[in-house]
């Protein structure tokens, strides 16, 4: 069975990893040749069984994909599509309840925008009184980062927010996924939903180097950030355009805090109203090169980019933007090198994935409104909190935001859940994605255990399990 194979592969990789680790720590002579295992055969391989091919056909100027049966790569109970903050939290939470979990991610690492997007600041975590209101799995991730050298900085220093190291975070997530014993497929794009005649989701179709394959599941959690799966299944959603940037990391930056420097020189004390009144209108000064802010790794800064407003689902627009962003980053670097402390700066890395903020917002059983957010309405089916941000105090997130209005057997998590745009603008932030992810994961596991649909989930039980997993519900 496909599942077994992948499990075995996983176990193998754990074992090899362990061996390499052991090797690096033990004196060389203690490693016996007999302990080494033979490698798979290198070079030409015997031909596999013949496979029927059904390429797309150009007929009458139209490209048509012939109808064909898809290979079922895998069967699972809970399928999580997308391995960002929401997806990893969902998969890990569900796996804690001992159901079969499969996590699929289109890139070769976990963490989504929080690692591959190089979006390294974790906020909003705290309420108005600087109490941490987002805990649970996200807190566990941060605790694992705590013990790593250069893993995370500014922890527990509310209202200052922690900043993580992207590579450390990728490592922590890989470790947690491996430990949990779930199945994970990387480099695997979810391209379609599988639905049955009752308009209930039964899995998803993926594209990878292995071709187009299906994964069947009892419940699907769409944590793709863009709602790719629910959109494919036909769920109603709101289309959003938002700023799209490209974040990068600069190396060899010794200006730890340019701001401090600046404050000393430029602006007088707070009471001195004579000084430093900036010019009116769109200012053109002070746009020298920027070096961003420190990360846990010494000498490495991360540089955020807001970017212009665009359609994060339009491949042509995304491609053009990404090229322009790269050009701009290089120009910025050249200007930044004129700054004292940044003369030897270089671009350590541009984010492997574009900084797409919001694209689709689900039409859910409940659409969280701006008014509810600002007035801090309490919900019976609350699954957690978002921290306070700007002048909006901390607010509760109801379970209904994760459940599609019509579609069955699917839950949304992360930045594509059901909320008004201005609310989603907060829900999309990393810690809040942990909250919706963890809740979606537990709810999905409950659907499997109780043989029910997401909208029928026993909410008190869901809340109880959330609490057991360390989440904060007020």
């Amino acid at each position: 069975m496909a599942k077994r194979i992948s499990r075995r592969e996983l176990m193998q990789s754990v074992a090899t990893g362990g061996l390499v680790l052991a090797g690096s720590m033990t004196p060389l002579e203690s490693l016996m040749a007999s302990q080494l295992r033979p490698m798979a055969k290198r070079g030409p391989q015997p031909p596999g069984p013949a496979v029927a091919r059904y390429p797309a056909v150009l007929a009458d100027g139209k490209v048509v994909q012939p109808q064909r049966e898809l290979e079922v790569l895998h069967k699972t109970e809970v399928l999580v599509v997308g391995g960002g903050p929401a997806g990893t939290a969902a998969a890990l939470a569900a796996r804690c309840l001992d159901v079969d979990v499969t996590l699929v991610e289109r890139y070769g690492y976990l963490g989504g925008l929080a690692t591959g997007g190089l979006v390294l600041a974790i906020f909003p975590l705290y309420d108005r009184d600087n109490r941490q209101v987002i805990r649970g799995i996200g807190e566990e991730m941060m605790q694992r980062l705590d013990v790593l050298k250069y893993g995370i900085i500014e922890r527990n220093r509310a209202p200052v927010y922690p900043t993580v190291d992207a590579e450390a975070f990728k490592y922590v997530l890989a470790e947690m996924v491996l430990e949990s014993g779930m199945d994970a497929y990387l480099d695997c794009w979810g391209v379609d939903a599988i639905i049955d005649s009752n308009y209930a989701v039964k899995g998803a179709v993926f594209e990878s180097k292995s071709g187009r394959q299906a994964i069947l599941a009892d419940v699907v959690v769409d944590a793709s950030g863009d709602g790719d799966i629910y959109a494919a299944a036909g769920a109603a959603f709101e289309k959003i355009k938002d700023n799209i940037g490209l974040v990068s990391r600069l190396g060899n930056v010794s200006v730890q805090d340019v701001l401090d420097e600046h404050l000393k020189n430029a602006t007088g004390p707070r009471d001195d109203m004579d000084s430093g009144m900036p010019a009116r209108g769109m200012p053109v000064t002070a746009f020298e090169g920027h070096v961003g802010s420190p990360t846990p790794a010494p000498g490495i800064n991360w540089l955020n980019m807001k970017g212009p407003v665009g359609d994060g689902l339009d491949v042509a627009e995304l491609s053009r933007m990404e090229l322009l962003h790269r050009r701009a980053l290089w120009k910025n670097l050249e200007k930044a090198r004129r700054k004292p402390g940044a003369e030897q700066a270089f671009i350590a890395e541009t984010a492997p994935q574009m900084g797409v903020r919001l694209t689709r917002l689900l039409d859910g059983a409940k659409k969280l409104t701006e008014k509810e957010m600002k007035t801090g309405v309490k919900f019976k089916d609350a699954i957690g909190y978002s921290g306070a941000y700007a002048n909006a105090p901390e607010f509760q997130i109801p379970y209904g935001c994760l459940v599609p209005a019509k579609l069955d057997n699917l839950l949304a998590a992360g930045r594509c859940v059901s909320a008004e745009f201005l609310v989603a603008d907060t829900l999309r932030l990393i810690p809040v994605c942990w909250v919706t992810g963890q809740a979606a994961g537990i709810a999905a596991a409950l659907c499997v255990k109780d043989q029910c649909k997401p909208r029928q989930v026993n909410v008190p039980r869901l809340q109880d399990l959330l609490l057991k997993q360390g989440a904060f519900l007020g």
Partner: protein
Amino acid sequence: MMHWRHPPRLPVRLACFVLAILLLWPVPLWISASTIAVQASPFVAICTLLAGWAFGAGIILGLVLSAIAIVRKRWFCRYICPVGLLLDGFSRIGLRKNAWWGKCPSIGGYIVLLTAAGSIAGYPLLLWMDPLAFFSSAFTIRTATDILSGFLSTAGLTFLLLIAITSGDLWCARICPLGATQDFLSGARSLPGSFKDILKSKSHGKARYGIAFSTTRRAFLAVAAGVGLGFLAKRNGRARADRAPLRPPGAIEEDEFAGLCVRCGNCMRACPSKIIRPDTGQAGIAGLLAPTVRYEGEYCLEDCNACTQVCPSGALQNLNLRQKNEYVIGEAQLDPSLCFLVRGVRDCDICVRSCPFDAVQIYWDEDLYVACPVVDQLKCNGCGACEAYCPTGDVKAIRVWKSGTV
């Protein structure tokens, strides 16, 4: 201490004292209760009326009490004034026998003349010397956010109490403009030499001692000086207007503001955001202790107009909620060299989110390849939400500046 023996007076005085405290308590009986407690002073009521910025129930009360003072000499001092009661008490425990000032002339009358004349010029010069304002101001200590402003808010009353301890009735008999106002009203051609005797005499009989204000010439000089100084102070205020700190919503023009403000602290206590702080002299000595606005952690709430409801002198105009939101406290301006968003420090848009009037938007400049918050000055009223929440640290990237100071 003879007056303590007049039975009806003590209970009335105590009742008025308690009433004053109730009116001024930080949780007021009704929103504008504290206004009444200051406007009841005939000195404040008359000068404010002359300056022409305020009118209302409190002023009418002040005028009624003024009218009583015409027929009943120093009636306000004897029955109502809470400060008078306090000072009486303190002078009893003090060294009051040493009335070294016995032969000194009264200056209260000059204060009244100067101030009333200044009022006509639009600048009631010494209105802040009203004892009820001192009394009111002392309550501000409960809401003071730092030691200095706490100290300053109680400084006036403390000073009066020190006078009472060291020099007995000096304040009431010689300096207090509220007392002197009553003397004018009661038509005393001569001003009292011994306050004690005045208080003793229950009638409005003629005064017995020293003549402090007998010549119309001196009075005339005082009035002329008041008008002149008033105009001068206004000009001075106008010249300094661009250096003046932010004032609470409803504040009248800067040139008259420092003069009309009685420093009672009512607005500071009324503000739920605690953004109104006493001026510690940023705009020169003239503005000392007048209310200024500072956005440290909080801003001027879009659903509040409390401070505009409690000003006894009209230095802060009475505004309804809509008017208050239209009143321009200042204008927000961005210093891009500090802004987290511009500098790529992190994905900040806190100013945009926090603005209650949608006045801040993020612009993307294709050439500079930078995103930058831009304030729409037509929508911005300077409420300071952006400044209060901007996360750049001690110096905010976006700050509210006095309008017209560019």
